[in-house]
């Protein structure tokens, strides 16, 4: 049965341009990360302390993950939480520009190792992330909704603030301050950024997006309520023990691994029992992402129990690849391939009605981004993840093929999203 067209209120929905600029920029940074790594070469990408690896990592954490998550929050806060943002488009434009500039400055800083670039990057990124934290944080804390997603988002934004602070301390350490040992700060910064900011936000958004778009039952109320708090408390305990009782840090570390494994297993179970079992590429993206998340957690646990099995440098690179590319890339892509078509449908529907066109062909969500194109991206993503893991272990054989496929995968995503934006523009121009 074809859904009839009805005029929906867009009062809660910011202009499409607000989130879309973030979503279209992110895959560009993914492509840039892959090309940069190819340019640097395997000889300088073998350890997580090397500038090339740091640049690659931040192109993905800031340029891809944060970019998409910022755009998603601009969109999801009004729709899911019922909070109206003031001046969403100017604020989104400003934060987008600062985030793009700050990321590029930071990458330049890593590659040039010049203090002034670190200082420029710190200033611009503080403005970008600081503005985002203030705007979104203010909106969240004034939200009337008591849904567990709001709580998870608050804790994620808090973790982002901690990550930013640790990043600034790292810049101080870089330019010569003796405030804190750089090595300790890096692990804290990494943990709060990936587990706190990225992990908690993905879990919180999943509480709504998985049941809504993947036609599953809801997450159990107790899990929804307690998982974010458990992750935050474990992060705090882990941070304190990492600094003061390092021999006991493995204990809260195991707790964190268990928390994310529980989230992954519960989500996989919900998806296995979907109420409508049609083939869905976004569910497949989530299978890949959740399996990568489980893989990263298991890898960490194995490394605690038997560290001699994997060389420490390789462990860190594998863990990073599984979290950033395998899990982060797949979970976010799965969300984007639902959120973007839905937003385009919503805006087109209302523009057509406002133009007095009560009958018309609004593309369905599956038509906005063709399933076969999204599936091509999925295949490329899986191939890229596997090749990257091999390439990190056997760089002479697989380094360049892995990164080439990774670049093509991000390029396919960009192509798919641009096609959706083009379709929207074409139909609008035809009104």
């Amino acid at each position: 049965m074809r859904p009839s067209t009805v005029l929906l209120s867009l009062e809660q929905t910011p202009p499409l341009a607000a989130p879309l600029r973030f979503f279209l920029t992110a895959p560009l940074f993914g492509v840039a990360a892959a090309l940069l790594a190819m340019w640097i070469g395997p000889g300088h990408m073998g350890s997580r302390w090397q500038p090339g690896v740091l640049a690659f990592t931040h192109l993905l954490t800031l340029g891809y993950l944060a970019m998409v998550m910022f755009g998603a929050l601009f969109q999801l806060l009004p729709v899911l939480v019922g909070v109206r943002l003031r001046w969403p488009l100017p604020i989104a434009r400003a934060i987008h520009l600062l985030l793009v500039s700050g990321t590029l400055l930071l990458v330049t800083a890593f590659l040039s190792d010049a203090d002034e670039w670190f200082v420029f990057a710190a200033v611009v990124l503080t403005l970008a992330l600081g503005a985002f934290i203030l705007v979104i944080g203010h909106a969240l804390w004034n939200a009337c909704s008591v849904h567990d997603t709001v709580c998870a988002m608050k804790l994620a934004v808090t973790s982002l603030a901690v990550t930013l602070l640790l990043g600034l301390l790292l810049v101080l350490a870089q330019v010569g301050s003796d405030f804190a040992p750089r090595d300790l700060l890096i692990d804290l910064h990494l943990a709060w950024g990936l587990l706190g900011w990225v992990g908690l936000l993905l879990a919180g958004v999943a509480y709504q997006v998985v049941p809504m778009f993947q036609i599953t039952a809801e997450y159990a109320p107790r899990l929804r309520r307690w998982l974010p708090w458990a992750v935050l408390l474990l992060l705090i305990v882990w941070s304190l023990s990492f600094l003061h009782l390092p021999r006991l840090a493995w204990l809260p570390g195991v707790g964190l691994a268990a928390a994310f494994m529980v989230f992954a297993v519960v989500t996989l179970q919900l998806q296995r029992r979907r109420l409508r079992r049609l083939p869905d590429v976004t569910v497949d993206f989530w299978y890949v992402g959740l399996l990568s998340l489980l893989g990263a957690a298991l890898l960490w646990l194995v490394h605690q129990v038997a560290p001699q099995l994997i060389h420490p440098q390789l462990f860190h690179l594998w863990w990073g690849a599984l979290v950033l590319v395998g899990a982060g890339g797949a979970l976010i892509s799965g969300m984007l391939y639902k959120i973007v078509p839905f937003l385009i449908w919503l805006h087109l529907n209302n523009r057509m009605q406002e133009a007095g066109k009560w009958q018309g062909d609004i593309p369905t969500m599956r038509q906005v981004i063709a399933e076969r194109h999204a599936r091509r991206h999925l295949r490329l993503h899986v191939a890229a993840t596997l090749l990257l893991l091999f390439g990190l272990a056997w760089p002479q054989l697989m380094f360049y093929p892995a990164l080439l496929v990774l670049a093509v995968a991000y390029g396919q995503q960009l192509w798919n999203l641009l096609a959706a934006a083009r379709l929207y523009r074409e139909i609008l121009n035809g009104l």
Partner: protein
Amino acid sequence: MQHDVERSIDVSTLGPPEPLVLTLAAAEQLQAGEYLRMRHRMKPCLLYDELARRDYGHDTRRTVDGMCEVFIWRRGDAAAATAARQAANALAPWTDA
């Protein structure tokens, strides 16, 4: 008599935007004295503003199997409101648990 005034729609296996669109379309078809009973797998957070804008009343309930049912009537239709509330009272109120 209850069933004569109740229109029902089950959107529990549909993804966005179909639950919202079909529910609003079904609500527009309500005759005098009739109410709509919408069944969904989750609380339809996007629905309520749309119902308010179109001047519909609503009552959200939780079924014994954990599903969400929203009873919808036109404001000003006292008979429909009474019938809807009577039907809704057979279920537990919805709590954001």
